[in-house]
């Protein structure tokens, strides 16, 4: 599971590559949490452009990070999901807590 993490204007951009399931989610979670703890990021953008598959384990990761940053008033967005990932995002109801944008640039300008 490859993960790119960077912060722009207090917004953490998480770009994942590959398949997110229970097996790979632990690593994703740990890497993001360590990065959040060490940085001054307030908002999170999950960029799924490089993700070919995600199941409900990915939902758990997203909700978990939401719970971590929302007490600090952070904003939350998801971007770049393919049809399969979008389906999971829709089913999960995550769009009640996060906005969906087509790409990171648009998401950033709405943070």
């Amino acid at each position, binding site marked *: 599971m490859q993960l790119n993490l960077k912060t722009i204007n207090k917004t953490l951009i998480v770009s994942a590559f590959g*398949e997110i*399931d*229970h*097996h790979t*989610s632990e690593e994703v*979670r740990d890497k993001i949490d360590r990065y959040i703890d060490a940085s001054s990021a307030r908002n999170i953008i999950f960029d799924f452009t490089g993700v070919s*598959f995600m*199941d*409900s*384990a990915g*939902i*758990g*990761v997203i*909700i*978990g990070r939401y719970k971590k940053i929302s007490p600090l008033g952070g904003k939350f967005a998801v971007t770049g999901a393919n*049809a*399969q990932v979008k*389906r*999971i995002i829709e*089913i*999960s*109801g995550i769009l009640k807590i996060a906005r969906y944008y087509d790409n990171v640039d648009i998401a950033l300008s709405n943070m």
Partner: protein
Amino acid sequence: MDYENSMRLEIPSKSENEAFARAVVGAFASQLDPTVEEISDVRTAVSEAVTNSIIHGYENTHGMILIEASIKNNLLKVEVTDKGKGIEDITAARQPLFTTKPELERSGMGFTVMETLMDSVDVFSEPGKGTRVVMTKKFNSIA
């Protein structure tokens, strides 16, 4: 003309086999000349059921998972069976957001995902004995 095929796969309950299991059932279902979306739906549902056997059924201990699939004309049936701890209250378990493993950040959406993506989902389970999830999906690509 009647077309039939079947497969039966046994794998140990290792999390790296989640990807393998969905790849196998996806490859099996590809005989149905499916759309990308149909295959995605099946792969996702299998991933949920197999993951549940690993996390909830065997609670990350060692056990075997049986994945059976069969095709009859344009109907795919997939059964995922474990001999793990079983489910106390199946109706409660199937509720969206219900999970007994919040500490693992489970979202409680597994059954909801299966139900949304497949045409039918039946759950048979007995505490201490194990769980069987039977899912079907009709493929529209061949009539």
